[in-house]
């Protein structure tokens, strides 16, 4: 599979603590193994704590690009949280953007305290659908909780990403990469999480 654009710009976004950085690293490694030049910019440290986080991935056959994607130039958004997904589209979306969405909301402390409100979830999802060329949406956190740990949701999303066939990645390359970069004791469960993500797309 060839890139539909060069550079192809991916944003993985969500809330601090959702495993954003690890997801971008695994995706970057998979695409590197496919021979591409990758540039990733990401959020770390205090800026992560409970706040919005984003990783920007530029995939190119040519060379490195700036670690931040220019506004209105995201080709694919992997949103780990719906409201964060919509916020990212506000800056980086355009008519051609595709969105892979985890539909499980995480309420900010402003929403919890009642100082702000979280709109009806179906409304948020409908807006994202309207603002994207194509959207795939499912509750990855629910599947992760079924598996016993909400932290699997980022791996489930990567499994889903491989199934929507937008980027040249598959199960085989995922297996190869996690064997290299993740602790082996979690191997089976990570593969299972990846497969659950693939299934979730097939069931849409």
């Amino acid at each position, binding site marked *: 599979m060839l890139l539909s654009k060069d550079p192809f710009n991916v944003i993985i976004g969500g*809330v601090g*603590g959702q495993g954003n950085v690890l997801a971008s*690293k695994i995706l*970057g*490694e998979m695409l*590197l193994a496919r021979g591409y*030049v*990758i*540039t*990733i*910019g*990401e*959020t*770390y*440290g*205090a*800026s992560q*704590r*409970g*706040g*919005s986080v984003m990783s920007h991935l530029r995939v190119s056959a040519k060379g*490195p*690009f*700036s*670690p*931040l*994607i*220019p*506004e*209105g*130039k995201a080709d694919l958004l992997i949103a780990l949280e719906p*409201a964060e997904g*919509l*916020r990212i*589209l*506000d800056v980086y979306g*355009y*008519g051609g953007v595709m969105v892979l969405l985890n539909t*499980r909301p*995480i*309420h*900010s*402390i*402003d*929403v*919890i*305290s*009642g100082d*702000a*409100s*979280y*709109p009806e979830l179906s*409304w*948020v999802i409908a807006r994202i659908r*309207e*603002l994207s060329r194509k959207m795939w949406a499912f509750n990855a956190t629910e599947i*992760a*909780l079924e598996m016993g*740990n*909400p932290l699997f949701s980022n791996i489930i999303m990567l499994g889903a990403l491989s199934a929507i066939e937008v980027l040249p990645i598959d199960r085989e390359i995922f297996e190869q990469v996690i064997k290299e970069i993740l602790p082996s004791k979690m191997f089976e469960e990570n593969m299972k999480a990846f497969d659950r993500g693939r299934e979730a797309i097939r069931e849409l």
Partner: protein
Amino acid sequence: MSSVAQNAPGKVVLLMGNEAIARGALEAGVKVCAAYPGNPSSEIIGTLAALAEEMGLHVEWSVNEKVALEVAAAASLAGLRGLCAMKQNGLNVASDFLLNLNLTGCGGGLVIVVADDPAGVSSSNEEDSRIFAKLGDLPLLEPGHFQEAKEMTRMAFDLSEQLELPVLVRSVTRVSHARGNVSLDELPRTHPKPKFETSRPRLALPAMANHRILHQKLRRAKEMFEESSFNSYQGPDQPELMIITSGSGYLYSLEAVDHLHLQERVGVLKIGTTWPLPEEFVLRSLKRSECFLFIEEVDPFLENNVKELFAQNCFDLGAKRFFGKAIGTLPDVGELNPEIVFSAIRALLSVEYQSRSEEYGERVHKAVKELGPARPLSFCPGCPHRATYWAIKTALAMDGREGFVLGDIGCYSLGMGPSGFGQMKTLHAMGSGTGLASGFGQLERFGLQQPVVAVCGDSTFYHAAMPALANAYYNGSNFLLLLLDNRATAMTGFQPHPGTGTKATGEEAPIIDMKAACEVFGAHVEVVDPFEVKRTAETILKLLEEKRGVRVLILRRECALLTGRRQERTFRIEVDPERCLGESCGCNRLCTRVFKCPGLVWDQVALKARVDEAICTACGVCADICPASAIRKEAV
């Protein structure tokens, strides 16, 4: 095996900028690496620590940046190669030693990597460290991308040895905390024998003679930089506009030229050896154009240096126009991004550009308005600091004398915001909370009636609070210091410190007991678990009202993320819907409206509190706070 340690010349791997810097040091045969963690620099030494045994290195987390630089410099003075890494604030701490070390010079290659945090995303300040190169007459290199981060670090060791001077490598967030393809070179296996030459003492004095030698070395550096491959020009022979850029500005500049289709009109002059400027190279480049735009983070450092050089040579060069931060072409604070660079160029060349259709922009803005304000930062679910600040708030309210909290650097700095109930009232440098408390604690004689409280993290305590505490006892100050001991340097990635019993490499270390240390400094010390919220608040109140002098309360509870990594859960938490009376309770939704832990959400349909099982870490603090006992904490 970590890709950083692979001896596979030619192999292309994906490395974070900080890992590329670590790899560059390994390819240069570094032997001693030391740092105090600080974002965005932390992963440099973190990466090397994990490889220390395999690669035969000494790698340490030092107690602060000055000591770290002294440790790395000792290696250099014994003929080995040493690396020291820090964030911008760290260089301020290390600068006293650095500005004497430049006079004595060094032996084995000594490289100081300083990673600046433009916009202060993970810092208390925004600062451009490059000024230290000028201040200390030291060579300065700035990598523009990942591959260069590795190459420059490796070359910096050679340069340091040739000049017998420490060399600064300056990175920024978007170099250090970005990832990209890096092609590896060979890893040498060197076994140099360290020896300190007693016949060559390293004395900063006589200062003036050494200052003169330093200037000679810097002139040599300038000559060497004239031929450096880190400086380059890409673009038309005589561009309408020449961008002069360094560091992170380089990729933004290339992207702008490409994106705005300006290859025929705009050239990019990249300077990698930023100080001393390669003057001949820059002067030759200045002849190509009449119009220049500087793209750099954070201050107009390159900009002012080039303009100074131009002023010296303006008679030969003729009239030129310079655009940059000095005259407001670009914002003079904050981080760069592609848009800032695009719009600066568009304004100068009158280029049309629209990032997306206006119609899309309008639709998405309208939708996002409904989402309300951006997500505020907060303590993680189960964070002991939330409980600590709750106890502080409770105790200060009960005390009623308008006591206030002097803050310090760490995750607990978020105590200034809603997550810490706005309790923290000052924020400056590492250890400054305790130092300020030492001063505020002297003001009673002038009529200050408010109780003085300082907070300080465990790692910060060893870094810079101990001298302040000694000062306080010696001079008879009067305050309460709260040591928030969460058993790690949590904000920067859980690095160990002298209180944890572990070294950077994971080896066992002796523990410097924080309580005993405080007692040596004359303090009355007590220890509590902040999760025992009521007891903690009562203890704070007691120490405020019943004791005088320097009092220390250690609030000891491991960081929730560390506990979470071991997947240990001691409780199961549930909200009993029968007992939670919601808005009609009279508690004013204490758990959600006031305590605000992200693990406890407000069910907008049932109008009651509910545990979010994807977030809750089951610390159980909320169960102690609910006045209706509606939150059940069951041991598992």
